[in-house]
């Protein structure tokens, strides 16, 4: 994924991915089953679900959270992320 970009900005410079609230998650795995980009992985142990590949997450996409009954997935503020992307573009003069 190192070559991946979003709006011309290297993907690994954009902090956009789901965060799991383990107090709420019931490990139903709906999100992991749904996400075609393999952002989530199932593991052994107490935390049976982890965000294993955060940079695989499509920037601004929040579709997995719409599958989450316990409302355990959160994302960064969208407007802040867009501002961050625009700032990086300006700094790097990405066209």
């Amino acid at each position, binding site marked *: 994924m190192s070559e*991946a970009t*979003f*709006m011309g900005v290297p993907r690994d410079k954009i902090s956009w991915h789901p965060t799991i609230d383990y107090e709420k998650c019931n490990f*139903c795995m*709906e999100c992991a089953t*749904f996400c*075609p*980009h393999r952002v989530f992985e199932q593991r052994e142990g107490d935390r049976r679900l982890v965000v294993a590949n955060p940079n*695989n997450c*499509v*920037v*601004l*996409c*929040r*579709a997995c*959270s*719409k*599958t*989450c*009954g*316990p*409302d355990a997935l959160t994302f960064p503020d*969208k*407007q802040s992320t*867009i501002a961050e992307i625009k700032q990086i573009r300006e700094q790097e003069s990405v066209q």
Partner: protein
Amino acid sequence: MNSAILSCTGLDKPEGSVAREVAIRMASSADSEIICPVLLNRSLARYKKSLAENTLIAVDGCSTRCASKLAEGLGIKIDRKVLISDVLKSSAVTLEPSLNLGPNGLGLAQAVVDDLVQSLNAPSEPIPSAAPSGAFPPPTEHLMVTHDKFEFRIPATDYMFNENDVWVRVVDGVAHVGISDYMQQSLTDINYFDATKTDTDVDQFGELGSLESAKAVFEIIAPASGTVVAVNAETVANPGLINEDPYGRGWLVEMKLSNWPEDRALLLKPEAYAKTVKHKAEEA
């Protein structure tokens, strides 16, 4: 307008209990017929007449969307949806942590009922409006992206895309917005289009409503900033059009753009979007 109401059973979490309470109150105050989800699942025939004659409202408690998914699985068209967890987020209410609803939960249920009754009693015309500019010809030339047995079409001219698979077509100062062939294929059969209201101002990358299929709920991320001046009444009534003709009759909204010269710098031309689609298809 007569309605039938299919709700969550309300036996898992408080949001579900609110959904159930909405169904009970709608039955008593708005003369809606309750569709029991458990019985519906056992015997579709029991509700066949009611479903054929009434506007169907699905009220889900949480994003698991059991009521909606049940209807969709049985091939039943839903006319109106309410998701209590979303209503809760946009209100200042905190639900009591019990399946037995307290004053907050009961108040929220009544507020949802009032809103539903008001919309059912409103004149049927204003929900979607036809595009003032009318239909536009579908693209004639396409770029093709192939991956395994799949083929994804991308119009060769006139359309620009954001990286969230939403296109904008700006011709003669009129902007139409829709989703790409790649996204409609990813979603599979689209069965619900929850459109943003007309006259709403939206920022670039803000929300223009959502699309729903059995597979996912898709946020329509605005490719440009501006005002929604029309919603495609045809796609609201028949969301399958988005699958059939994503770049033509399946358009979603028409916008009056407010910052197009700047916004377009953050969009992809067809050739660049084709590379993005190729990358996404290979990664999935």
